[in-house]
């Protein structure tokens, strides 16, 4: 059974068309991440699911009931907000209990659930404190506690980690993932951070300009993007794009370099395309060339160490590409060397419609 089903949803703000006909099905217990650049409509979509925005047309079903016109309180959802939305005049315990008390849950039950949620999040010792006395990370835990204490069908997260510093963000990401595994609840999570999306999601829904660009398992999107946009959005450092022309067995770059693309022998030759190469699938030339790989001579221009890995910048086929190399086999800038490219992972994009061929 699906806990959330959205059919042909549209949202207009005056002349601005924020959501342009979205269909979405979220099965029970799944962790779905809505991701996309700012202005793609992901937050609007989430807020429409919550009932904080009114749908212009289309339907929203939660737990099998049509709630398109229901008030937020009648939707049986819980939500974690970007800026925590803690009530400054209530202490941590009353903040967590707020939703339960609003729904007239008996006080004994409130006590039990609050202490369990607090324990789960490791904030049991903070219950008597007020939000202003908490650190950012603690506030975020309280905000999450306020959501999970509820017995909701659907848990919504609106960029909950975007206000935390990098270290804390990594910790909280782990925390949220663990909570999902323990609780097994259906969660919909909005973020603009593709790393958050990749690490947390059972399924990523990538939005662009109010439409779903592609959805699926994180690795699926990473390995088999359907469009140039998806290919470029996921992954860090970003995918390299090089203008190329098709040949019978692969592509030719503007400097004449020919690269065979395995399994793509049926291409029509002479067509202008864009070749997409992930920095992770480029390595320094080894002793022998692995099957499906292509070896190319390059000159390294710039080296950026990141610790265990090194990002090397080099010109290739009229473009500048980045390769993520192992730290120990990197060369000095200006040095001529050879790289091996895993062409089985390469994507070929039609520049006309930006679709992956």
């Amino acid at each position, binding site marked *: 059974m699906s806990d959330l089903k959205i059919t042909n949803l549209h949202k207009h703000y005056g002349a601005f068309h924020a959501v342009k006909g979205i269909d979405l099905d979220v099965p029970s217990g799944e962790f779905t991440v809505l991701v996309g650049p700012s202005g793609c409509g992901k937050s609007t979509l989430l807020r429409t699911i919550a*009932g904080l925005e*009114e749908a212009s047309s289309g339907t929203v079903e939660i737990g*099998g*009931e*049509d*709630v398109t*016109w*229901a*008030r937020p309180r*009648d*939707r049986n959802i819980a939500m974690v907000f970007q800026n925590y939305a803690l009530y400054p005049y209530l202490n941590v315990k009353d903040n967590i209990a707020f939703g339960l008390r609003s729904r007239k849950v008996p006080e004994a039950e409130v006590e039990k659930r609050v202490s369990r949620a607090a324990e789960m999040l490791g904030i049991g010792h903070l219950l008597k404190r007020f939000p202003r006395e908490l650190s950012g990370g603690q506030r975020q835990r309280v905000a999450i506690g306020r959501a999970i204490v509820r017995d909701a069908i659907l848990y919504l997260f609106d960029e909950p980690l975007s206000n935390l510093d990098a270290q804390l963000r990594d910790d909280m990401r782990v925390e949220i993932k663990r909570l999902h595994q323990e609780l097994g609840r259906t969660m919909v999570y909005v973020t603009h951070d593709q790393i958050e999306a990749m690490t947390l999601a059972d399924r990523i829904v990538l939005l662009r300009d109010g439409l779903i660009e592609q959805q699926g398992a994180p690795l699926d999107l990473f390995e088999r993007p359907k469009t140039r946009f998806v290919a470029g959005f996921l992954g860090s450092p970003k995918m390299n794009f090089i203008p190329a022309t098709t040949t019978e067995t692969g592509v030719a770059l503007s400097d004449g370099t020919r690269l065979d693309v395995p399994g793509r022998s049926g291409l029509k030759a002479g067509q202008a395309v864009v070749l997409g190469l992930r920095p992770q699938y480029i390595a320094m030339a080894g002793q022998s060339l692995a099957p499906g790989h292509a070896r190319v001579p390059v000159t390294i221009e710039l080296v950026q160490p990141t610790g265990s890995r090194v990002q090397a910048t080099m010109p290739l086929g009229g473009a500048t590409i980045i390769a993520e190399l192992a730290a120990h086999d990197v060369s000095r800038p200006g040095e001529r060397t050879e790289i091996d490219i895993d062409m089985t992972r390469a994507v070929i994009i039609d520049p006309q419609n930006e679709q992956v061929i």
Partner: protein
Amino acid sequence: MPAIAAHHQPDRNFKYWIIAPAVFLLLLIGLFPLIYSLVVSFMRIDMMDTDTSFAGLYNYKQLFKDSRLWWSLAHTLLITVIALPLELVLGLAMAYLFLEKLPSRQIFISLLVLPTIISPIVAGATWRLLFDNKYGPINQIISWIAGQRVDALWTINPSLVYPAIIFCEIWQWTPFMFLILLAALSNVDKSQTEAAEIDGASFIRTFRYVVLPAIWPVMAIAILIRGLDLFRIFDIIWALTQGGPGTKTETISIYAYVQGFKQFETSYTAAIAFLVIFLLTVVCTWAIRRMGLVK
């Protein structure tokens, strides 16, 4: 599965329900009297006569012949154009005085604000006692300074009564200007004034080109609030002179009150009210545009 019964519907009219009582009261107390006045101002109702037939612009024509009315407007204007700039300049000077650190600054400010928060009637009454020619301290102090007995009739002598009123008015409302301008000055970005100082700008230039533009929005509102208050000045004068001697200090508010409640010129008072509202609207609109409060 049954559809959830409660739709957004109960919320739909919520926003109207919560604003309705306030709007109703404002219509009753604010708009109803205006409409009533408008209707009555086209009739001829006074103490003698309740002639409810349409009298056209009779009352409005009367306005132009009524020299006492125009004098009362002139008195109002006189008080406003003298008191308002004085309050502004004094308030600004005081704000500068207290802008930087000063021992017991907070206590001083609290004491200085006292005149503004007491009732204008009490303020007028207080100055009535102060201005008394024989037993009041003002004449006594002036006598000390002059070195001879001074017996000024502040609330009776036509040439002294305006200084008295304006003095009282300034005493009560300068602290208002002071407080607002002090807050505005404290909000001015210090790095800007410091940059101007380093550039060698004089105090006047710094004020003109850095401080004034920063505090102007607040200052303009303060001027507007005080200007409106001065235009409808009633209480202080009522307590000090009741418009006397004769009609020498009658302001437009006092005159309208006298016409309505002493002469019972119902229709004529209504016409005066509309003249006041008309003048106020014109001046306000002009001032708001002029001061750049609305683009």
